[in-house]
Every structure is written in structure tokens, then in C-alpha cells.
């Protein structure tokens, strides 16, 4: 536990799923059936919120720094919203 290294990152699909799960839990990413366009827009917006919170570069893209933060041990309380 002196190391904060997270698990090895997987494929692009694995990373996307990890990010969606993270954003749903901590940033209120909407769940359920929506248009692809709407889903992509929501994902990008929530990702930017998360990047802003952690003072990462706010791109809306799932880069390595962002994924690194998402794999770190943390509190289960959402960062945003009720």
C-alpha cells in the first residue's frame, strides 16, 4: 500500500467502460437509452467536469493521466451532485 499504482489499463473498450462506470458513480453520468450523439456529448461533458475537479488538462478526451486518476483508491461519495 506504499504504492498508489492502479491496475494495468486494458483495451480502449475496457478503458471506456471503466470511465463510464466512474463518471456514472461520481459525476452523475446519465444511464439509460439515449441517442448516440447525446450519449457522446454527455460523456464528454462529464469527463471535462472530472478533469476540472482533479485539475487535469480539460480536454474531454480519455487520456492516460485521466485514466490514472480513475484507477486510484478513493472514497465512494460522488464528487458532484446529491
Amino acid at each position, binding site marked *: *500500500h506504499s504504492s498508489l499504482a492502479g491496475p494495468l489499463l486494458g483495451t480502449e473498450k475496457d478503458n471506456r467502460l471503466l470511465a463510464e462506470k466512474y463518471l456514472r458513480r461520481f459525476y452523475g453520468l446519465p444511464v439509460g437509452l439515449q441517442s448516440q450523439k447525446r450519449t457522446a456529448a454527455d460523456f464528454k461533458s462529464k469527463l471535462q467536469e472530472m478533469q476540472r*475537479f*482533479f*485539475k487535469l488538462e480539460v480536454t474531454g478526451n480519455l487520456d492516460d493521466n485521466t485514466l490514472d*486518476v480513475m484507477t486510484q483508491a*478513493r472514497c*465512494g461519495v460522488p464528487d458532484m*451532485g*446529491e
Partner: protein
Amino acid sequence: YNHFPRHLKWKNNIVTFRIVNYTPDLRKSDVDRAIRTALNVWSDATPLRFKKLYYGTADIMISFGRKEHGDHNPFDGPNGLLAHAYPPGQGIGGDTHFDEDEHWSKDSSAYNLFIVAAHELGHALGMSHSTDSGALMYPIYSYATGYPLAEDDVKGIQALYGPNPDHKKIKPKPDAPQKCDPTLSFDAATELRGETIIFKDKFYWRLHPQMHEPELTLIKSTWPSIPNKVDAAYENPEKDQVIIFSGIRMWALNGYNLVEGYPKYIHKLGLPKSVRKLDAAVHIKDKGKTLLFHEEEYWSYDEASGTMDSGYPRSIENDFPGMDDEVDAAVYHYGFLYFFHDHTQYEYSYTSRKVIRVLRTNFILGC
């Protein structure tokens, strides 16, 4: 800092708590102590007082559970989610749950129960997550020793409940340094396996050539065995070690681990006993020498022979024309020495023996 929506808080300053069950990872007395100490951290800063119940329903019900544990907010096995708590309110409000699939400890060997409990109890009192990476209410776990609340946490909890009327003195941790503060100065800098590490107060920035943003972390959460304040540091790549200086002692680190036999006194290097701390240190890989800076002078240490070169100390100003007379931190890259003093950075060419660029210190952090 942040609060929950509607600034939820306990209406009464006397808040009850009950420890419903215990983790087998620690003795019962250790769990009791961790929880009580975590509560004291918040009561020291506010008018809140905590009363322990041994049966029935308390405001804050504390328990250990794994996966789905009754609140439809399941944990996830080892690592990942460590714990959660609910904001003040009736029923589940204030309740605090720890993931029993984690290994809990009272030191840095596993997830420290006191640190996580102090964070979660902050939620139970109305604190949401902070964006300040030095604050206790920052969502990501990090180990640290000393007083756990930062100024940010104190401001946040006192915004809800006011200060402690007994005016008990609390000394909060400083907020995280701001990388784009134009007056920023560094404590120390070193290379580490291809990355640049910059020390400032209790924190360090990690810069990687492929990372756009520097990463800010508490020193203790990576290296629990070195002090919170670093005076100087350098990497010896041949030994794959980073040497950290603080006061009259030095530590050798190999990755995360302390090298056996350390800490040692800096005078073992051959420095006079009158030197009580170093200002900066830098290893010149091409020559196998380490330069050690103290006030207006510097020494040259030969790593191969383990001795100081003769003819030292020498004057910084004389030997590095264009530089200030003192140094806070220094790094060496491809024939260039980067000296940092106050909020100015000097790029010094070893070949042409002169300063060729003067920049702001935080230019290296992308500002």
C-alpha cells in the same frame, strides 16, 4: 472545499455515534482509538461534541461491510472504493461504512483507518469533496502523518458550524502550492528515472516528458520515511538512487524504498560541521560529480571515489557567471544546468560557461 447541496448539517452540536461492528484486521481498541481520534479532529475545530452509544440508533452509525451491505451502494472488493458516508440527516444520514474487503492498518502498511475515518466523518458532518489535493476531503486516498486537516478543511467545517468556542489552537496543514503563482519558489528538484521531481512544502510535482500536466502529490504518501520538508535532492543514475537532504541528514531512496543504512549525516560526504543544511544538489552525469550548494558556496563531490574534490568550497557567483549568488534547487539535462532561485530560473550552459536564458521558476511546470 465543498458542502453538500442545501449545506446539510447537524442542528444539534452534540452528535451521537455508535460503532456497530469491527474489522478483524485490527484490535477492537485500535478501531475505537482511530474513530475517536478522527472525531476529535473535527471537534477540535468546531463546537461539535461527540457522544458514544453502545446500543440503539445513533446519529452516526459506523460499520464494516463488503460488496452489497444493505444500502444499495455496494463496495467493489479490494482497492477502488474504500468507504463512504452519508451527509447529516435522519435514518441513514451520517452513517459511515468501511469496505471490509480492504486491509485496514494503523500505519502506512495498508489503508490507514484513522485517515479514511477522518475523511468519511467529514462527510457525516456535512463536508463534500475538496478539489485541493492537500486537503483531507480530497477524494483520493493518500497516507500522511501529522495533523490531518488542511486550512481548506478547517474553513469548510467552520463555514457550517463556526469555530471551536474554547479557541483550542489548531495548526492546519498548508493548502497545496499553486503552480502558476508568479512568486513560486522551489525547495528542491531532482531527476528520477526519466522524470523530474520538484519539491515544495509538503508536496512534490512529478513531471514526465509525455505528461502535459505536472502531477502534485504529498511527499509522505509516496515516501512515508522521508521528512515533510526537503532541502535538496539529486539522482545518482548509476546507483539508481535519489538522495534526499533535510537538515543535517540525508536519505537514499531506491524507487519507493529506503536504502539500508540511511538516514546518514550529510557530514559523511565531507561537508564541514558548520553546514547545518544544504540549499541544493545536482549530479553532473557526464563528469560523475555531484555539486552541493550551501549559501553562496558550493562543493564538488566525486561519486566514484566517495570523496570531496579538493579546492572547495568555491563561490557560486564566480564559477557560474550570470547566476544569483544562492540556489534553491538545481537539475542537469543534456549539458545544461537549471538553477532555481526564488521565482527565477537560470539555464546555464556547461560548454559555454554562461547563463543563456532567464525564465520564471514555474515555467518548468507549464506556466
